[in-house]
């Protein structure tokens, strides 16, 4: 019977027909993506015409994996992403819980929370770069005022990662806090009142009520922050272009430097494609976990 009442083709094709303009844009984006995979298996260099026709198979990938900088690049990509996400999650959760109180200060501050994350990341980074600057900067005078020595910030290999992380944390903690605050405000008050009447401690309520109910929101925040910091380009590029030396050469910065700046297009692509694969797998996994957490939080 099911088969007999199958709607006519015109009706079945309608959603595809409605989405057709977007599908055309999709093709326009997927086509270069496929070219990227092809180019990555050639000897293509922009300054050597004709090199695009030399097919080299997986040689560029082998070269990447055996390059002496590859391990370090992997380390710095993940160190940046995991530290940024972890610190922003912790600090953002604290800020969200502090804002979710009946406090005048919280009411005044909440609307300004978006400022650091809504201005262009490059601009925000340049402002921090100015603050860290030895001649006009303000951070070293501030350190000196409390008796601490001056830092070279992003100019020194020891403090470069710390400096860019500081900017990332400044810029994106508000995003974490805003999403988690929306989560906290969506909670029903009954279980919390019950816990209070029963004399439950803060930690007990936090561990057994707040965190489980917040978990779908936390996963959403991790999806955005982890994916964006794995592929972070703007902050690192505006701060040091990956330097000093190769201190901040993540996958993204390596791909940019090799393919665009050095014009060895095919050699940089494996870094971008590897990063794409890592991000794709991680985000699929996290989005599945989000679906589960949502169902669990809803009590199914």
């Amino acid at each position: 019977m099911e088969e007999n009442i199958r709607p006519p083709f015109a009706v079945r094709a309608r959603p595809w027909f409605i989405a057709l303009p977007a599908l055309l844009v999709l093709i326009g984006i997927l086509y270069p993506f496929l070219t990227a995979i092809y180019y990555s298996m050639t000897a293509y260099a922009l300054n050597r015409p004709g090199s695009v026709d030399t097919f080299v198979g997986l040689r560029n990938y082998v070269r990447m994996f055996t390059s002496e900088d590859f391990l370090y690049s992997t380390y710095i990509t993940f160190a940046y992403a995991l530290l940024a996400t972890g610190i922003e999650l912790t600090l953002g959760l604290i800020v969200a819980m502090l804002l979710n109180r009946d406090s005048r200060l919280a009411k005044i501050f909440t609307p300004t929370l978006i400022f650091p994350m809504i201005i262009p990341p490059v601009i925000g980074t340049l402002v921090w770069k100015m603050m860290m600057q030895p001649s006009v900067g303000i951070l070293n005078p501030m350190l000196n005022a409390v008796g601490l020595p001056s830092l070279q910030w992003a100019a020194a290999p020891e403090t470069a990662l710390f400096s860019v992380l500081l900017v990332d944390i400044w810029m994106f903690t508000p995003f974490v806090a805003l999403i988690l605050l929306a989560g906290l405000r969506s909670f029903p008050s009954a279980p919390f009142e019950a816990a209070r009447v029963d004399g439950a401690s803060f930690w007990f309520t936090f561990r057994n009520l707040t965190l489980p109910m917040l978990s779908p929101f936390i996963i959403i925040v991790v999806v955005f922050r982890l994916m964006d910091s794995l592929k972070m380009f703007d902050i690192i590029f505006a701060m040091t272009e990956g330097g000093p030396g190769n201190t901040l050469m993540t996958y993204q910065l390596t791909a940019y430097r090799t393919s665009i700046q050095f014009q060895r297009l095919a050699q940089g692509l494996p870094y971008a494609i590897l990063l794409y694969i890592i991000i794709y797998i991680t985000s699929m996994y996290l989005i599945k976990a989000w679906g589960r957490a949502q169902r669990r939080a809803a009590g199914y």
Partner: protein
Amino acid sequence: MQSKVSNNRLAAILSDGFLGLYFIFALFPLLWMVLVSLKSGEELFTTQFVFTPTLENYQAILFGDPRAAAGVVARQEFPRFFMNSLIVSSGAVILSLLVGVPAAYALARYRFRGKEDLAFTFLSFRFAPELVVIIPLSVLYRQLGLYDTYWGIIWVYQLVTLPLLIWVLRSYFEDVSPDIEQAAMIDGYPWWRIFWSILLPLVRPGLAAAALLAFVFAWNNFIFALVLGGSNVQTVTVSALGYISSAQAFFNRMAAASVLASIPQIVLALSIQRYLIRGLSFGAVKG
């Protein structure tokens, strides 16, 4: 009881104290940016907070530097960069609206095979490392004559604006009860009339907010115009680097340009505050 009350007061004071410290951290750089933009070249190096404010930096970047010595770049091109940002960001949002609103409707209202895969493919634009697409595009654009053109940048900005609009709008469309449409369908209205005259007006506030947020993200973008644009389409974000990467660093000019490039963002964000959470989370958090 007495000690419990004072404990609560202590907790409130500590909480407000931490919050205050956090907001100094969050807002001080922006305040400092405004301060530096008001400093003259001399006071830039000699003072921190006490100085005679001047608008000469704004004057210089907007109308040209009257005191520029020969050989020094008088960076009065800021209005052009600003217009470029305006053109490519608005263009990208308009194109995304034209193709994205119908797609969001199809994804919200129809059940068809491959629907979730299609939705995730659009979402994956948002998370994909941009260089995977723009390295090959840098070749393709030169072949097609799209390099350093508005159309080229508007096209590649779809990676930023389209997933946002499709996902946020889909969640708004899903919020509207299908009963309304079914009633109209029984009355004999064709699907496109129902979409245009019934559904669209219902989601208009969300639609406007999503479009403005897409504009903000397009405006903030840096890497696309850096790789695929040259001097013709240079945006404010790409040009901002120019103030301090040249031999002589114009910190105060750069601060003034930063302020002017940030004001539209802050105004837009404040105007769509109610819809911001849903927009920022791509419809996942209904805020």
